[in-house]
């Protein structure tokens, strides 16, 4: 071999050595220096996490009785791996077995919202016979499986519908709001009511299934599962029996009013524990079936539930209904008079049946005259002239005191949401000079007058004018008076309980504001209110004929809205000397307070009295640990174990087409 060849072979060697060095260097860079980055990338490729929703916690009444539960529903699901002719064949066969059209099944299978990797549910609530039929054809239906899935159950039908609320599939907005809480499309979420207010507690901890997938996303094997944890139970301050009696009484007297030719388009009942603010009952009529929402509600039904001529059954009138409080507002005017020193409980006014203020005549309802009246009797007989005069006197006070009625109203919680856990609560309205000026400035056509007149104050003095309040605000104001001046935030929840029955959290009563109420004033007002039912002159004397429970302090209200039938209101508190409960009933366009609302309240009070002392009922505060995650309770009255396809309770007198098919 010559010298040139030797050198040239050497060159080849050098080139090869440098190329191999480059390979080593690159290998070192990838495997030693960048290892962690690539390791993460490789694991991310390989593993897919599929969250699994937990069964929701239950909702219990204050005696531990189940209001909302879960049950297992049979769901037929189809695997995503099914493709081509085989899929067409399976869908065709399933369509016959499940009595669904091929298009319906295909729509489900095409729905991008279902999470990857998990089989897509094509039919829920599949009966046992169909399930057996599907299992028998297992070999001809590859990729089809039966899944047990937890479903919300409402063992008491529409009882407490507005309070309990319902669940549904999460929407885009909710998804955005709860971005950090691990929700996914297709998840169930509380939409309204307690289901929504206590979503975080009820939801539980979703489980995670881990799958190993290959490049095409096909599941190669399951890597394991973290079990989901059932959500915590919520015990409410609500009492099942009281709630039921409130709903039955409300419905009955609405129907009665309708029978008397009144429109009676709807109504609400609220019962509060005045020592805590706990909501013992909250009813709204017309109502709906929460179970109608379990598998999603049809557009048609949804539309019907939102039609004004069907009286908007989804509205919770206890917190969304706005009514002039009428004479029930007179306790506010009373307190304002006492606070300004315009009156003492003994100050008398001569009621001649009417009074002229400015150039207007203000009359008592029915034109009656009560002669010389002091505060208690003015309340008992509901003398308008007394409160007209008082309101005028307050209006005549110097700047700073002239709006004392409005000030007291606000102190007692009117004009702003009470703060109950429920969504969509209305503000109500306490009109004053500033308000009148601003609405006139904003919209002179609708509000042609921007100046405040004495007549405005006088109207407010008896709960009329532009004053608006929700039934819950009325109840809160009376509860504050009843307990001596503590305005509690009304609340539905009492405590959160884990699935082993341990109390995780108490919902403590929260005082929003303290209203200084002199005990002498309180007893004078309560005394007058007591006369409402106890005294022959009292506006609700007849309504409480034969009542045998503890003494009740009450106030009727019959408020006017131009062009409509009167709103019927009634507030009752008992025991009258140291009230524990306040019950408010309001029936829209129902007529006089004493005729319609008063008997509803009486009925609810009687139920509270009889159940409080009933040794056969579980005591208040009873906590029962779930027997199993999906214990099916024994259905009680009004219970439907089967889902009701429609979300509306038949209401014969509402406009045609409001009741479901």
């Amino acid at each position: 071999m010559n010298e040139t060849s030797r050198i040239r072979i050497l060159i080849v060697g050098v080139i090869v050595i440098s190329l191999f060095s480059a390979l080593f260097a690159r290998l070192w860079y990838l495997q030693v220096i960048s290892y962690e980055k690539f390791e993460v990338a490789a694991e991310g490729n390989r593993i897919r996490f599929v969250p699994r929703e937990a069964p929701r916690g239950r909702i219990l009444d204050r005696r531990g009785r189940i209001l909302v539960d879960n049950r297992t529903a049979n769901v037929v699901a189809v695997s995503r791996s099914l493709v081509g002719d085989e899929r067409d064949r399976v869908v065709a066969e399933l369509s016959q077995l499940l009595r669904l059209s091929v298009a319906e099944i295909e729509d489900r299978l095409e729905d991008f919202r279902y999470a990857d990797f998990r089989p897509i549910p094509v039919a829920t609530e599949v009966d046992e016979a169909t399930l057996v039929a599907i299992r028998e054809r297992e070999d001809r239906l590859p990729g089809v499986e039966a899944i047990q899935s937890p479903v919300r159950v409402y063992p008491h039908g529409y009882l407490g519908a507005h309070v309990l609320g319902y669940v549904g599939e999460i929407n885009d907005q909710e998804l955005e709001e709860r971005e950090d809480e691990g929700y996914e499309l297709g998840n169930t979420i509380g939409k309204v009511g307690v289901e929504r207010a206590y979503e975080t507690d009820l939801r539980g901890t979703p489980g995670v299934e881990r799958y190993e997938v290959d490049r095409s996303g096909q599941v190669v094997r399951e890597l394991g599962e973290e079990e989901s944890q059932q959500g915590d139970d919520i015990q409410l301050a609500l009492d099942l029996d009281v709630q039921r009696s409130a709903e039955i009484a409300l419905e009955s007297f609405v129907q009665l009013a309708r029978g008397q030719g009144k429109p009676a388009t709807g109504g609400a009942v609220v019962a509060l524990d005045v020592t805590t603010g706990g909501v013992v009952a909250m009813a709204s009529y017309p109502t709906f079936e929460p179970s109608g929402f379990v598998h999603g509600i049809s557009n048609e039904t949804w539309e019907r539930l939102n039609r004004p001529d069907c009286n908007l059954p989804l509205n919770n009138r206890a917190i969304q209904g706005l009514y002039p409080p009428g004479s029930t507002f007179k306790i506010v005017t009373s307190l304002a008079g006492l606070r300004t020193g315009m009156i003492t409980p003994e100050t008398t006014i001569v009621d001649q049946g009417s009074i002229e203020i400015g150039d207007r005549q203000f009359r008592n309802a029915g034109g009656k005259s009560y002669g010389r009246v002091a505060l208690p009797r003015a309340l008992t007989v509901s003398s308008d002239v007394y409160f007209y005069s008082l309101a005028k006197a307050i209006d005549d006070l110097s700047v700073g005191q002239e709006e004392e009625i409005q000030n007291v109203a606000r102190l007692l919680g009117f004009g702003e949401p009470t703060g109950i856990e429920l969504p969509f609560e209305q503000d109500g309205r306490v009109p004053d000079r500033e308000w009148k000026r601003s609405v006139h400035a904003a919209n002179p056509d609708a509000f042609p007058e921007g100046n405040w007149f004495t007549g405005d104050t006088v109207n407010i003095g008896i709960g009329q004018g532009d004053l608006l309040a929700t039934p819950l605000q009325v109840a809160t104001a009376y509860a504050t008076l009843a307990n001596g001046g503590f305005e509690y935030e009304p609340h539905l929840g009492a405590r959160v309980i884990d699935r082993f029955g341990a109390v995780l959290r108490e919902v403590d009563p929260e005082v929003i504001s303290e209203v200084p109420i002199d005990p002498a004033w309180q007893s004078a007002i309560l005394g007058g209110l007591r006369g409402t039912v106890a005294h022959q002159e009292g506006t609700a004397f007849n309504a409480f004929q034969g009542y045998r429970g503890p003494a009740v302090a009450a106030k009727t209200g019959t408020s006017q809205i131009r062009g409509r039938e009167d709103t019927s209101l009634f507030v009752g508190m008992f025991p009258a000397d140291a009230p524990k409960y306040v019950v408010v009933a309001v029936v829209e366009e129902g007529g006089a307070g004493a005729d319609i609302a008063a008997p509803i309240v009486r009925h609810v009070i009687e139920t509270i009295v009889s159940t409080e002392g009933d040794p056969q009922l579980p005591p208040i505060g009873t906590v029962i640990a779930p027997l199993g995650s999906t214990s099916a309770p024994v259905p009680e009255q009004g219970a439907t174990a089967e889902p009701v396809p429609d979300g509306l309770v038949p209401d014969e007198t509402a406009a045609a087409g409001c009741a479901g098919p």
Partner: protein
Amino acid sequence: MTVSSVPTRRHNPIVFADWILVGASLLLSIIGLVMVYSSTQHRLAFQGEDANYFLVRQASFLVLGLALMALMIYVDYRVLRDLSPVIYAAAIGVLFLVLSPLGTATRGAQARFDLGLLQFQPSEISKIVLILAVASFCYQYRGDLDAWRLAQALGMAAVPMGLILLQPDLGTAIVIAATLLGILLVAGARPRHLGVILLFGATSLVGVVAVGALEDYQVDRLTSFVDQSSDLQTSRYNLQQSKIAIGSGGVFGKGLGNGSQTGLSFVPEQHTDFIFTAVGEELGFVGSSLILALFGVVVWRTWRIAQLAKDPFGTLAATGVLVMIAFQVFQNVGMSMGIMPITGIPLPFLSYGGSSMLASLAGIGLVVNIGMRRYT
């Protein structure tokens, strides 16, 4: 005490065979068997097929390859040298045949004969044939490669390269080009000429890409290594997956059969062209380095034989085999790690495939042959 006898031409030449070279090649082939099995077992099992399918076939290729290697060792390389024109002509014929309807098209390339149970890819073995032919041609004009003779040598290579490009199999054509350059360099081609050839080769490659003579996927594969951050295109995605596989192996690897990137098909062709990803992922830096080192041993022993060869033909043929193997290793491993363009060429000894196995072992056989007959 006796003086150990110096080997002489009286001995059977097998005494002088380079067993280190044979051993390293054999070891690489056996590691290849393991890696082929490891990277395909899960996929086959998941598809409900025999998990040993590729293992059994690759093992039979190894047996066939060892037989061919034995033959290449047994027949004196000078006989091969003298027969090279005949062998060359036969190879050209076969390359024509594969383009005819007798050949089979797989994945867009008309590159194989389907022999029922087995397939044969003539381009692989034609690399060895061309090494023999060019080395033999240069040997005739030892040390004196003027422009005309150089042109003749290039023409000899151009025919099979052209036929292989028609299949099209760009990777093998590039390997042949590199091998040819290596032989010509050692054969004494003038640096000026070599420069012109390099320039011409580069220009024509760019020209071929620009004119669109290549299939789209080939262009994608060739250029994807330039912009590696984007995974929009499949080849970029594939390259990314390949790097993830190797990188995630770390220092010690995930263990045999535990590679998720290769086992779950995130890396395509994980048992053929991308077998090194399985090595990197499952055996880690330690195992990968060991395999590169074994290749280093093969190259080193071949280089040594090129120097010790009795005649220039031996030197040139050994150089050809050296460049062929070294270039394929660099190109294949480099492509898996994203420092070379993706061209479909197998990793010698390790990649699944009979023709490649036969070609590599035949090449080693030829080198061992040259080495052991250095005295005779």
